[in-house]
């Protein structure tokens, strides 16, 4: 099956600065890939190359089989920029109608209403953008990115202005996209969100991919914590399989056991290990 996004040896240099250095990346249809990295790592550059805003210095990117930036590729892409704005004078419905026309979507009013409902903006189609909160504008931006049923959705910090309810809405929406077979590349600093929703995580730093894998594979075990009558005992090398033996030994030794917790590492730990460890 053709990848939603395929990048091979992608490099981008701005003068003497290397923003991307021979990056390989693939997003399969129906796959949610989280893109992580510190500021200036090259995440946005990668996303912009994928949607045709930036031309690579070397390498190739394809969207649904078409060269990134080509008309066919752009027709298959939905994009929400990190820093975007819609005209303040326009109504939400007008913004979506313009993008429908440019995306050659024949979904009409039904598609616009469905998309607004999907991002939690039901009944707000007649509202002018300048009267919307930043969070509402971000939701509108996500709705705009989904016009015309794209095969690849590129979201650059899509939840930065959203409250917890809005983030939940976007997570549900991303899960829905996965079920529809849409490939999603999610660029975010919110590691907990990526951990919750993404099938795979790619961490880049200094323009290079430093690690990638499933969130559960990247997070290391963190030992076992046991709450006993003598206080909290931490066993950093213990694993889940060791818990029955540990409890048995403690009870046999006369201790009262009140609780046991298997500690797992977080994506944040993995991220810091990959980025900070590499940098420092």
């Amino acid at each position: 099956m053709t990848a939603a996004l395929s990048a091979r040896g992608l490099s981008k240099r701005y003068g003497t600065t290397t923003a991307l250095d021979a990056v390989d990346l693939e997003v399969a249809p129906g796959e949610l890939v989280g893109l992580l990295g510190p500021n200036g790592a090259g995440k946005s550059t990668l996303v912009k190359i994928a949607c045709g805003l930036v031309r690579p210095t070397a390498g190739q990117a394809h969207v649904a089989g078409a060269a990134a930036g080509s008309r066919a590729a752009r027709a298959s892409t939905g994009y929400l920029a990190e820093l975007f704005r819609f005209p303040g004078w326009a109504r939400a419905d007008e913004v979506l109608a313009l993008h429908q026309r440019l995306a050659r979507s024949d979904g009409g009013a039904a598609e616009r209403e469905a998309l607004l409902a999907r991002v939690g903006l039901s009944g707000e189609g007649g509202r002018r953008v300048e009267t919307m909160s930043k969070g509402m504008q971000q939701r509108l931006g996500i709705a705009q990115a989904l016009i015309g049923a794209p095969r690849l959705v590129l979201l650059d910090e899509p939840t930065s202005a959203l409250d917890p309810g809005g983030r939940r809405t976007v997570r549900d929406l991303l899960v829905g996209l996965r079920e529809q077979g849409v490939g999603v590349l999610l660029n975010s600093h919110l590691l907990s969100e990526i951990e919750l929703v993404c099938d795979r995580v790619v961490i880049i730093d200094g323009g290079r991919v430093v690690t990638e894998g499933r969130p559960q594979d990247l997070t290391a075990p963190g030992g076992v914590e046991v709450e006993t009558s003598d206080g909290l005992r931490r066993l950093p090398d213990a694993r889940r399989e060791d818990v029955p033996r540990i409890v048995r030994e403690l009870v046999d030794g006369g201790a009262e056991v009140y609780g046991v917790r298997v500690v797992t590492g977080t994506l944040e730990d993995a991220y810091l290990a990959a980025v900070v460890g590499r940098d420092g």
Partner: protein
Amino acid sequence: MSDALAIAGHSLREAVRRRVLLVVALLTAVFLGLYALAAFEVFESLEQTSGGAIVPIDERALAGGTLLGLAMFVALFLGVVLAVFLTLGAVRGDADRGLLQPLVVRPVGRTTLLVGRLLAASAVCALYVIAVFLLAALITRAAGDFTPASLVVPAAGLALGVVTVVAVSLLGSTVLGTTANGIAIFMVFAAGLAAGLLGQIGDALEVGALSTASSIISWIVPFEALYQNGLHALTSDIGGATGVIVQLGPFGGASDVSAAIWPWAVAWSAIVLALAALAFSRRDL
């Protein structure tokens, strides 16, 4: 073409909703009101004074030609202001504000986006300068029964002149930030007008080099040649000493420019737009 029209419609809606056109209409009404006051006062004062000039002067033609020359200059100036403000941030400015990226990623060519902006701004500015000039001509006729030799040539020259400014402003917007582009376009406009005035001085003092330089510059920035041609057409039927005075004019010299200026101005705009499209296509956003 459908996509370009969609972008043009979007730009026109923006001009209407942001009340740009309303403000322009109100300020233009103020200008036309003042122009009417001046025109009626001038022609009325002519009724009360008698000749006395050493050479025979047709005072009514002199007053009418000069007033309408002023109206033509103001129409061009306001049209250029409108053209610049509608387009000065079309590429870099809109990209810096994050307005452009959502549109560029759609399956619409970047050239199409530029053509859409050109169509919208050109339509607004061309209709505007034609309307201001024709209303001024009506006022002049009502005030002093003065009818220019031609209305079509000056009006068409003004319209095509502001289209060339729209094109060059779009080109500037691909490489310059909003403020820098605005300043650059106004300086180009001022340079064109200055060249026209220098040519006028050259003609009056019979300094050939100045006249030649002025002529070359007016073809490099064709809005100036179109303006000079329009001024000439306005008063080409006025002869004698009056004709000489009115052709020199206080707002740039009138000049009977070759008919080749019309296709040249169209081709010039197309070339400038093509350069803008090339610069835009190579620009990372």
